[in-house]
């Protein structure tokens, strides 16, 4: 990374624009915005929208890396733009594009439908045979049991991992990293008994087995969820289950 020239006053952004009403395909447009040491890429976009070109569309909200809406490609790498500092890209230019591997709705806004469908498909909620009445208080869960799924519960659904996964790029049916990590999050929760219901989908080809462990999902994940790890663990579990079903063909799968 180049050292900051201390006198940088502006920085160039190359932004992918796609206006469905007029553009056939995305085009790069260039803008110069003020450079500030403490600014993130999102600040530069906001400056641009407020002062230069009000037609630029992108998603953002919390500006603190927790709502998961501001994911984009920054110089070809999936990033949360609210956590990507301009100073790390000096002297520029910085190329900002919509997240890869998703259809583009407009400018830097992508279509989430596929993700949302798959998200729901793995039944990401607690499934139990019987409920303990609320009057009896909480389910006990030791810190160790919590630690067993905690990491997988940290996902902010930013989908950067999908933008980084070449398998998802080429395989429409693949459930993808975050969704599989989410399934693990519930499967590993000591309060949950729904593993059986989720397995069929998770353990299918479109589930964990499409993943060839490229590993970039975990590398780009801003919350250290480690979806690649989640998938590897599920592969181990699925394999154990597979052999077990041969050893005990009349038992439950």
């Amino acid at each position, binding site marked *: 990374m180049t050292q900051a020239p201390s006198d940088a006053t502006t920085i160039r952004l190359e932004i992918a624009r796609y*206006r*469905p*009403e*007029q553009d056939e395909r995305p085009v790069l447009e260039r803008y110069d915005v003020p450079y500030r040491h*403490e600014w993130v890429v999102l600040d530069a976009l906001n400056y641009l*929208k*407020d*002062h230069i*070109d*009000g*037609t630029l*569309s*992108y*998603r*953002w*909200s*919390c*500006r*603190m*890396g*927790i*709502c*998961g*809406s501001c994911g984009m490609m920054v110089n070809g790498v999936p990033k949360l733009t609210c*956590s990507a500092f301009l100073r790390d890209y000096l002297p520029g230019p910085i190329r900002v594009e919509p997240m890869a591997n998703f259809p583009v*709705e*407009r*400018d830097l*806004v992508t279509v*989430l439908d596929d993700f*949302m469908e798959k*998200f*729901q498909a793995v*039944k*990401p*909620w*607690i499934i139990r045979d019987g*409920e*303990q009445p*609320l009057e009896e*208080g*909480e*389910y*006990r*869960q*030791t*810190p160790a*049991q*919590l630690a067993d*799924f*905690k990491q997988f*519960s*940290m996902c*902010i*659904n930013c989908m950067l991992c999908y933008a980084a996964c070449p398998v998802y790029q080429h395989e429409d049916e693949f459930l993808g990293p975050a969704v599989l990590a*989410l399934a693990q999050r*519930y499967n590993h*929760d000591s*309060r*949950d008994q729904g593993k059986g219901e989720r397995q069929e989908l998770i353990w299918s080809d479109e589930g964990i087995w499409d993943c060839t462990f490229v590993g970039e999902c975990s590398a780009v994940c801003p919350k250290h969820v480690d979806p690649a790890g989640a998938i590897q663990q599920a592969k181990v579990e699925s394999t154990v289950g597979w052999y077990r079903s041969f050893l005990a063909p009349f038992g439950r799968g």
Partner: protein
Amino acid sequence: MAEITQHDIVIIGGGGAGLRAAIAVAETYPDLDVGMVSKVYPMRSHTVSAEGGAAGVIKPGDSLEDHIRDTISGSDWLADQDAVEAFVREAPRELTQLEHWGCPWSREPDGSVAVRPFGGMGIQRTWFAADKTGFHMLHTLFQTSLKYARITRYDEWFASRLLVEDGRCQGVVALELRTGEVRGILGKAVILCTGGFGRIFPFTTNAAIKTGDGLGLAYRAGVPLKDMEFVQYHPTGLPGTGILITEAARGEGGILVNKHGDRYLRHYDLGEPLDLGDPRHPLFRTMELGPRDRLSQAFVHEQELGNVFEAPDGAYVHLDIRHLGEKTIDQKIPFVRELAKNYVGIDPVHQPIPVRPVVHYMMGGIDTDLEAATSLPGLFAAGECACVSINGANRLGSNSLPELLVFGARAGRGAAEWAREHPESSRAALEQQADVEEARIRDFRGGDGGTERIASIRADLQAAMESGCGIYRTEATLRAAAESIAELRERFRSMRLDDHSLAFNTELTGALELDLMIEIAEALVHSALQREESRGSHQRLDFPTRDDERFLKHSLAYRTEGVPRIEHRDVVITRWPPAERVYGRAHEAGAAERGT
């Protein structure tokens, strides 16, 4: 012609309150169907950024009575005591319910949920999921809501107007961001859960979406806004961005020091500091665990005395958590470390964090009763956009998340009952209203001839609010703000958009938001003007004391064609008569009294 769809109940907002309401409907009346309209995907809602925790009495040694008393004194006696009682009673059940739905609460070694100390609370009663409590609550609620087939979501639809016919609220008009389509979404009952409006100020912990749209919609439909003058400043925001450093940092033992290294809170009647090695540190309701309004006010005084650090991004003091050690910090408040490292380049394990007061929470909101019903039949409200009121003149940290749950659930049940009893009425009239709204939005988008950019109007509005209605106010500052807002309203009439397109036009939604922000800013300023006393977060330099005689009352702002009309309503006092609000000293006395 605007298309029309129909549900039994329409919920506007997919944050904590909206999701809780939707689940309440789905669970109590599975035959009803719910339409949930949200301008962002639900898991992006601002509840996601709440860090510290959610208060609810569960531990032995704690009592409902104590939580009620802390909340009421925290509110400077402006909270309705019947509401506080209902809230405190139901909060533990709601938090347990969330546990059953899978919320990863932090735990004790024996597997029970853990609790932590929080500002203004007299005992440890704040449930937490490390320092991402709101994040985990929101995701748990959202994921749980997915199992109910009768909840239909309208994600990234912007609600711009309530449909009112026959004196009843019967739906909403909303704009689909993806297509630009405007549609009438009808419901026999409507619940507003649109969150707060910190974004009418320039320096806030609030996310970009917190523009108060729901308040504007209700206000325009004739519903009064209650106690709007009470704006909570959080004492520990990061300079520059306003990103919040959670109160849990102080709950775990962090201290505030000025540029001389002095724990300056001791000079502001918040008790005496304990040694950091003292096992009793941090002491409840004392020093750093005093309430937010008092801590933020102390900062202003220190600034006037020249005791704070000055920097281009604004003056600051130090929040020092180094003595907690790396292990505790990583275990209990890892997000604090992450945020400080990322946004101010400081590792709090080795350096103190620069912090300054920042607009954080709005006590005021849409006037509702205990069942979350507003004065407009068929319209309910819950969450930060509503004012029941349990927060009075100052909300206690960690009371808001349980409030979403308790009153979200109440709103859901109330709306469901209402919807079952009230048939749909004259659809033609509703359709016609939707068409009118569609035309209004088209005009906004077309917006020819104007010259004003919405970004500059918004910036000026925020500046006016900051200088007029900050931590300390006077009649003069408030009048100036009122005048600026009136001017801005004029300028808004000649606004023009760069973007005339249909697909994902965020400049258009920005304009729709700004239109409503101006309304509620005006309600806020005028409410503040009439309250000639100092109470909780509302501090008038020209009226420095609390005046129960005249102002132990809620203020209600009604929209008129001119300036808002302000009315008053008595606070509900049941068993806890107004008293002096004391911290530090009082705690020691109170503790002695209770024999702890």
